[in-house]
């Protein structure tokens, strides 16, 4: 689960991680007020107006409606013009940004609508760095990863200058140890108060990753200010889905407007669904088989419209819900049901499919491949249903048939 930058910073602040002062707003007049308050509180005439969407690359991104306007804007007008100039400029920017569509390298060409802005105090930056905490799957432990190349995507750094990436493995029994945080601070070139502040920042970050069950915390850039403070200028946090049950506060930060409606609906029915761009709808049991079903559709010349795993114990209602979600996609020109019944019996699936088709209707070709427990009974139910369903011998046969029928 992803959250907005302003939410991540709120959580970080609570975890003892230094962040600049700021406020989230949803209207231009609130934006102007928030900017004036920040200037008064911090004494810094500079403020930053940042688009809040669940995608990176906002600074370099551009609005469709305002092609010259970036997603993150530094307002310097207050330096000479005072707080009224700051208010005017922030209001003007917020008017343009709110409700407009921001396109970044991560949003796709359709972009994302900006509904929330974060107004943040300006920071006198001495150095921009990078730090992240994430799981290292090969060691089954979290690692803290840092680099002097702040502001650059870590994948780019890893590719071009891997020697610039510092790593420390975090033993879950002990957490990030003092000598480890000191080593990273030194490796980042921090000295004096900045070294101490940096080490403290890193320890708080590593602890927050565990306390909040994050998938990843990424601070890019991590900045050192001209007076030696170390703080998170940007902050991205995503949360591990399996642990959300013990973090109701994090769950409350969910922004439904950032999530695909069909994926959210599927989740409510206990289905694992991911929308794709193709024309062949897929309904499968098991994640591996569901992925392989998409692959085989592509292999025989089609394009999958979705990933859908109904799980190992789906009932009739779930099958019907799955069918509705698939057929609601106007791109779908054919449906492939691919089931290897283990615990789930083929006759249960067949009954579910027949009931769903009767309820939802069916305007596109349907190919069903059943294998495994009670397969003969399942096939009989399909064949005797009077529905226009094509049976497949195996997975490849089914894929070939549905791609042909959907042409």
């Amino acid at each position, binding site marked *: 689960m992803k959250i907005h930058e302003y939410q991540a910073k709120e959580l970080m602040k609570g975890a003892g991680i230094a962040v600049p002062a700021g406020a989230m707003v949803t209207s231009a007049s609130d934006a102007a007020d928030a900017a004036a308050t920040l200037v008064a509180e911090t004494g810094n005439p500079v403020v930053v107006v940042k688009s809040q969407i669940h995608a990176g690359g906002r600074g370099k991104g551009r609005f469709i409606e305002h092609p010259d306007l970036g997603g993150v804007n530094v307002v310097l007008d207050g330096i000479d013009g005072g707080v009224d100039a700051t208010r005017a400029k922030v209001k003007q920017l917020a008017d343009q940004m709110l409700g407009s569509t921001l396109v970044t390298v991560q949003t796709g060409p359709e972009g994302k609508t900006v509904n929330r802005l974060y107004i943040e105090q300006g920071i006198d930056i001495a150095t921009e760095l990078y730090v992240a905490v994430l799981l290292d799957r090969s060691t089954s432990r979290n690692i803290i990863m840092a680099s002097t190349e702040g502001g650059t995507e870590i994948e780019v750094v890893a590719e071009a200058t891997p020697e610039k990436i510092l790593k420390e493995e975090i033993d879950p029994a002990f957490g990030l140890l003092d000598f480890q945080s000191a080593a990273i601070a030194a490796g980042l070139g921090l000295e004096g108060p900045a070294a101490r502040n940096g080490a403290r920042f890193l320890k708080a970050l590593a602890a927050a990753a565990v306390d909040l069950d994050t998938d990843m915390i990424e601070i890019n850039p991590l900045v050192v200010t001209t007076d030696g403070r170390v703080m998170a200028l940007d902050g991205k946090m995503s949360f591990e889905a399996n642990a959300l049950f013990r973090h109701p506060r994090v769950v409350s930060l969910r922004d439904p407007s950032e999530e695909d409606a069909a994926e959210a609906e599927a989740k409510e029915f206990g289905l694992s669904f991911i929308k794709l761009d193709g024309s062949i709808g897929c309904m499968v049991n098991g994640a*591996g*088989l569901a992925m*392989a079903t998409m692959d085989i559709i592509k292999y025989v010349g089609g394009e999958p419209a979705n990933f859908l795993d109904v799980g190992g114990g789906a009932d009739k209602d779930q099958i019907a819900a799955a069918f509705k979600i698939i057929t609601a996609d106007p791109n779908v020109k054919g449906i492939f049901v691919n089931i290897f019944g283990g615990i789930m019996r083929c006759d249960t699936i067949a009954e579910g499919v027949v009931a769903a088709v009767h309820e939802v209707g069916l305007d596109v070709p349907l190919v069903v491949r059943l294998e495994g427990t009670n397969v003969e009974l399942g096939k009989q139910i399909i064949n005797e249903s009077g529905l226009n369903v094509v049976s497949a011998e195996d997975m*490849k046969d089914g894929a070939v048939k549905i791609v042909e029928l959907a042409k």
Partner: protein
Amino acid sequence: MSVLVNKETKVLVQGLGKTGRFHTDKAVAYGTNMVAAVHPSRAGESESFSGEVDPSGVEGRADSYTAELPIFRSVEAAVDATGANASVIYVPPPFAADAIMEAGDAGVPLIICVTEGIPVADMVVAKRFLEGRGVRLVGPNCPGVITPRECKIGIMPGYIHTPGKIGVVSRSGTLTYEAVHQLTLNGLGQTTAIGIGGDPVNGTNFVDCLSLFNDDPDTKGVIMIGEIGGTAEEEAADWITAHMTKPVAGFIAGTSAPPGKRMGHAGAIISGGKGTAVAKIEALEAAGVVVAPTPTDMGSAMMQAMSAGGL
């Protein structure tokens, strides 16, 4: 011969909820030597099972079975009383990592965790806890382990399996069933099928299983089924190049998966350009593995690998 489990394996079950009871019954029907259950609030009681035996299971039994499984307060008590040497875990996700650690602390040599949805951070701790304890964890989020006609531990349908000469190791449950079914139909059969699970932090990995199968005289070839995410398949490819003496076939799911999306399994995600199916397929092919282009071709890929190996 086989790996991990056989007729001698004595199994205890942790978690006797609806799922745990259902699959324990199936295991007893198959002929698995189920010896104990652990349930803190039901210590001293027993759980009854009865029904028709699974004809695909252990041979030479009567047509029906009845069994009384004694329930113990702790894994330690169950092991002391019954000599159980394997545990299967169906405990719900919030408590499953603790169940794994309890089994590890009691020294159960083989711990098979079926539970899906365990928090990653819990598994990081559990894996750390098991270090140095000399026990093996299989899973979590896996179908389990089966040696056909000897011992079935987990949720796989028994009847698709048949004794034979291929070792099966997989991150995906249903794709394991696909592979096993094809190996049964083409007559190769299985020595042991191991589901290592779809989570990013798991116990036994591909390399562990390849090594076990390499040392098992009855296993003549291995099929490994991977998917996007992580680098376990690449590490397996390196190990195969250096050590494997038997033919290996494979399949990798997720060639069409978009980056940055978790494809059902918690561990199935391409992140930062790493963990793609193409990279895994290339690594395996470079190691001489016959990679099936689709799941339908897994059985024939194994045949091809065997005949290329002169078998």
